[in-house]
């Protein structure tokens, strides 16, 4: 049975749409009981974007929305900074396993979250411009320092409407909230 050209077109279009959706990978440690994670510390995110404050903004929204979920308590950023200073962690965004376990016991948290912001800001294509935010996050178990959850997501960018009619797209903060929502969906909906 031969596939009709129209079917092939539909499949190709769906594949394209899937590519545009911007959903990244996701990993959950199958042996981890996520219900036992009550308190987490969120480390400063690594910033790979052009905006020097991009990582802090994403981290801030991430902490706030994680708290707002009501499932997990997040330690204040200042307390995390104190822990990192006290333990002399050189690279706060990428601590070693040993540093993670020490930090976990110092801050008395069940898990530690770190992340990387890859894109934060405007992208241009022709006359169209829009905000795009891309980030990946990892959750480490405090006791062992191993990765128990990892996810990445990209939101925003230039839509078909932006291309056709112009416009500046959605504010960066709204895109960030959408991105963090997506990441938290991945965390809670295993």
């Amino acid at each position, binding site marked *: 049975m031969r596939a009709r050209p129209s079917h092939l077109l539909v499949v190709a279009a769906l594949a394209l749409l899937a590519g545009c959706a911007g959903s990244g990978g996701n990993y959950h440690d199958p042996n981890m009981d996520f219900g036992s994670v009550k308190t987490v510390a969120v480390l400063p995110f690594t910033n790979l974007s052009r905006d020097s404050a991009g990582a802090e903004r994403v981290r801030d929204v991430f902490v706030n929305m994680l708290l707002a979920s009501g499932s997990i308590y997040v330690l204040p950023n200042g307390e995390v*900074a104190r822990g990192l200073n006290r333990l002399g962690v050189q690279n706060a965004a990428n601590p070693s396993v040993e540093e993670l376990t020490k930090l976990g016991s110092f801050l008395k948290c069940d898990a530690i979250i770190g992340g990387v912001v890859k894109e934060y800001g405007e992208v241009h294509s022709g006359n169209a411009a829009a905000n795009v935010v891309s980030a990946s996050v990892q959750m480490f178990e405090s006791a062992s320092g191993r990765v128990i959850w990892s996810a990445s997501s990209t939101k925003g960018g230039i839509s078909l409407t932006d291309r056709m009619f112009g416009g500046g797209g959605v504010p960066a903060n709204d895109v960030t909230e959408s991105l963090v929502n997506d990441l938290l969906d991945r965390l809670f909906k295993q």
Partner: protein
Amino acid sequence: MTCWTGSSSSSRAGRAVALVLTSLVACASARPAGAPAASGGGARAFRVAVLPADSLSSGPVPLRAVTTQVERAMEAAGLKVVGGDAVEAYLENHRLRFTGGVDGPAAAAARGELGVDGLLITTVEEHELEGPPRLAITFRLVSASEDARILWTDGFGRAGDDAPGLLGLGVVRDYRRLEARELVRMARSLTLALDGRGPRAPPCPAEGRFEPSVLYRSPDFQPAGRYSVAVLPFVNETSRRRAGDLLALELTRQLAGIGRLRVIEPGVTRDRLIHYRVIMEGGVSLDTARVTLETVGADLVIAGYVRELSEGADPSLEYTALALDRSGKMVWQATSHGNGSAGVWFFDWSMIGSASQLACRLARGSAVSLFGEGDTGGTEVALPAKGGKQ
């Protein structure tokens, strides 16, 4: 007998009339809920020391000139103002260089040395002489007592082109005119509060467009409770000087507008932080929060981060504020961002042209998201009694 009965009934009627009259008199003299009770004589009997203005502005400010204008405006409103050399000598005696706040011992000393009931703290947030002039000032009246209570706080942020009107006829190009108009308004707000006829901390308008974009409030937190709150300076992550102090000040002002709260004077908090050598690198830690709560006797400590603060015709601001309770638990966190043109669709109607006003509105949104609307605008605080510590 009839006569006796008649006498009795007329006596009862008289008593009823007297009761009604007494009630009416009591109602007439009753101050608005929460307004400060004047210590006899109201604003005209109130002696205030005007401290030299402090600047949170990004540019240079003629602080001496501003302070002089403030003194004149307060005098014109009927207050007994102590300023100039007497205040300079007092500051010198106590080695006070920072005039953006006052701590308890210094406030109490002002009563003895200057013979005042309160200290007026003036903080200039924006100052622009060129183009359409721009001026934003926040005032605080602090009691001259050991506990340095905030008796009144108000502020304004105005640009000459705030209300251009038809053909730009409403544009104010003269800085002096703008300054004089607003200082008169502030002096009136202060005298009304001292007379018990106005609110202690008139809040900024609460607008939906300036509510926090992301909000968390612990389900265990009781927003309707009576708390004492200390606001720490926000961590400044912008390139604008003292943006963190500006935000903390605006938040303090909006919280003071919630009558059931006791907001700690920022000068007291600052003094305690310096005394215990607390440095908030990277934000408030649990240790910092505990020290602050213990030393100033507060139930909640509020801190945060300012990520963006730009001034100009379309100002923008982004910050995160959080509240920690005595157990070190974060009970509230809110991220707010906004710009002056947010929600403006019809020409420039409802445009916010001053960063200070934007901060004020966003801070109001944050305060309401933490404590609810509540009994804004009033306080139970009475003015300090003459000659005694409160």
